[in-house]
């Protein structure tokens, strides 16, 4: 599932990384996406088998350009929806380690049958 998420976000030509994976010594790239798998659960279980899986992710976009934080995340939301992800809302502010960067995140769901 992550492969599909990474592929879609990579289409914006910014680095895509797991939330928390940047080391203390590494500089923030000017603009980049992060993601985190919140949870996953079986949605329909019968005959001793999982028949569908619901995966939930945080998708965050960080940028040194405060306007881009909003516009790129909105574009990413549209693209994720087109590719079958369920996204509700326009996102929320997320904390940044660097005062030079702002961040916005959104919660996305993917149902795999």
């Amino acid at each position, binding site marked *: 599932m992550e492969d599909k998420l990474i592929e879609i976000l990579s289409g914006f030509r910014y680095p895509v*990384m*797991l*939330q*928390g*994976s*940047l*080391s*203390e010594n590494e500089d*923030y790239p000017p603009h*980049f996406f*992060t993601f*985190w798998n*919140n*949870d996953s*659960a079986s949605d329909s279980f019968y005959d001793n088998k999982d028949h569908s899986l*619901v995966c*939930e992710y*945080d998708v*965050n976009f*960080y940028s040194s350009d405060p306007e881009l934080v909003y516009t790129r995340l909105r574009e990413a939301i549209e693209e994720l929806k087109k590719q079958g992800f369920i996204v509700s809302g326009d996102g*929320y*502010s*997320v*904390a*940044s*380690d660097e005062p030079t960067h702002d*961040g916005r*995140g959104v*919660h996305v*769901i993917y149902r795999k049958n």
Partner: protein
Amino acid sequence: MGRNTLKLSTEGFEQYLAKLKGLGADLKPIVTEALEQAGETVQYDTENAMGSLPNGGKYETGKTRKSIIRNPEVKWTGAMAEIGVGFNFAPSSAAGYLITGTPRMKPARELNRMYKGKIYIKGIQQDMADIFVDELTKRMVD
């Protein structure tokens, strides 16, 4: 900025409540009980999730723990009731950092699952539904 809270309300339970009302039930104490129990579960799970964080971490301060909303009150607006549970601080606070993480810090897994995922809250709503079903069953048997 909003607080790091989960809002639990009577939204989505209208059918149960209409049936209870039809059976002559006094809805206010039943709804209050269901929301308070759900609030207690979230408070308990939040405290547990905070307890499982490594000691001496960047945000291991009493302040974050103290910011957990305890014994929240149910607020009524007409026939709708809601309760706010979680942390009494803005997303830029330590609790906010723990829930969403940062590019240099992984989220606290359990807090992230509770406050950002939908699966956890669905379970809490199921607990509320069970309370309403129990109340319905009691009245139908009587």
